[in-house]
């Protein structure tokens, strides 16, 4: 049957598609932020996983250099250590440049001793016991060595990122609830407006499912149009933000870029929104119709 004719046709110029568009846009942006944060955290974790930094904290430059070379050799002899690299002084200089400046005379190497840094990679997780074992192995050749897991430095940052990810998930859940609530109110309003028609269709032998299908179809159309508009808006915003963050040139921000799988997931947001709107409409109509004979 041409069920769509049972109630007046959906007016796409009404507020519902715009409400859904805003919800979908916000959901896509929040999801994109959550995915970008996840990517950044995952990339950072992978990079730091197994990373060990050995600092040679010795004030005398010659002794510091000697201990550093000895430590590199000792580390190279250890089977669990995969790669060892003594960070060159030039690289160290660039690392501390933002705080101490780049002029050669600006820093008196003896007045402000900079520790030698050794970057080592070990297989598997860096645990406290393994750090202690490395510390013990270096004790005789480099007594001023301090051994740290690289991941511990970024742990507060990663914890903060995880909190932001949960915030993004919570926002998506709240937006889904708000979308369902908006659809519920819209369908209830439409049910009230078309109450007489619905009663007549019932008395002519129409079933709840037939009537529900009309509202579900109308809601699906509104949600599809709104979802498409919202997705377009969100894509523009996300691409703009990605470009702005990308131009920062900060490593961790760059690693948060969205890949094709992320975009595919974002593309599912309007689809899920349409399905959620249809489900909400059906449940609302069926529940309302059950109250009448």
């Amino acid at each position, binding site marked *: *049957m041409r*069920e769509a004719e049972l*109630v*007046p046709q959906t007016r796409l110029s009404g507020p519902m598609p715009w409400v859904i568009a805003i919800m979908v846009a916000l959901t896509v942006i929040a999801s994109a932020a959550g995915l970008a944060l996840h990517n950044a955290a995952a990339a950072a974790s992978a990079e730091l996983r197994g990373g060990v930094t050995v600092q040679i904290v010795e004030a005398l430059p010659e002794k510091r250099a000697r201990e550093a070379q000895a430590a590199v050799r000792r580390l190279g002899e250890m089977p669990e250590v995969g790669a060892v690299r003594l960070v060159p002084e030039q690289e160290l200089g660039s690392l501390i440049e933002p705080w101490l400046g780049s002029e050669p005379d600006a820093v008196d190497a003896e007045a402000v001793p900079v520790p030698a840094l050794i970057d080592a990679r070990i297989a598997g997780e860096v645990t406290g016991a393994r750090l202690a074992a490395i510390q013990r192995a270096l004790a005789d050749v480099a007594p001023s060595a301090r051994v740290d897991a690289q991941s511990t430095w970024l742990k507060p940052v990663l914890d903060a990122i995880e909190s932001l990810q949960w915030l993004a998930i919570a926002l998506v859940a709240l937006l889904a609830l708000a979308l369902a609530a908006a659809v519920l109110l819209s369908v209830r309003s439409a049910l009230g407006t078309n109450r007489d028609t619905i*009663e*007549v269709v019932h008395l*002519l*032998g129409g*079933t709840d499912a037939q009537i529900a299908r009309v509202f579900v179809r109308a809601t699906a159309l509104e949600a599809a149009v709104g979802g498409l508009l919202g997705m377009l808006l969100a894509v523009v915003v996300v691409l703009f933000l990605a470009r702005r963050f990308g131009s920062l040139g900060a490593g961790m921000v760059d690693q948060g870029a969205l890949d094709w799988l992320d975009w595919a997931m974002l593309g599912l947001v309007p689809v899920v929104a349409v399905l959620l709107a249809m489900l909400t409409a059906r449940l609302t109509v069926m529940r309302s119709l059950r109250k009448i*004979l």
Partner: protein
Amino acid sequence: MNQAADGEIIHFDNVGLRYGTDREVLSDVSFTLFPGSFYFLTGTSGAGKTSLLKLLYLAQRPSRGMIRMFGADAITLPRERLPALRRRLGVVFQDFRLVPHLSAFDNVALPLRVAGVPERDIVKPVADMLEWVGLGDRMPARPATLSGGEQQRVAIARAVIGRPDILVADEPTGNVDPDMAVKLLRLFEALNRLGTTVVVATHDVHLLQKVPDCLIMRLDKGRLSDPTGALRYPPRRRMAPAPGEQGEAEAGNGL
């Protein structure tokens, strides 16, 4: 046509109806409708005719008593089984209740579409029916643009288009001229001869004289009286149309 094994199509037993906590608008109503019979339900305004019809077309459940329709207990019947029963009824509402955003054609086609009749089997019968009630040129018109009499004829066409087992009509000739009233009654009679049980509520006593062998149920302050004995004895079943009446029956059939 389906009916209960003992021949009854509808049976009311000590039915009472009250709205909210008000007094009963129907009290101790008991009667049996038999297939192929023609009933008039009469009574003064406020006697409970419309309330009784609402029970008949399953818009209302009674406060007490028992109603059996087509062999099923209509009181305890699960809600989801009511549409199947309703599709066997044709109803002409007192206030027509046409769907305002649908054309006259689509209003009449509505029961067929609800019943899942294919679109190709809808167009001709609906057009013929509207032609028969004199609205062949008003098919695309919306109810708001139709006169009261035209709306009533659309409502009647919608009620009979599905060839119901029972036709329930609440003051179906109230807004039409005498000629059209007679014509509509002839349509009801034609349907009745084809097996449809007809129940017409009216307060127009002249109408009763126009249908020979009709059975009259009279409501008075929510209680039923029985001037023709319709409720006590199975009525005489209407016979198949005489050869001279064939054309009239076919007119109804082809509607």
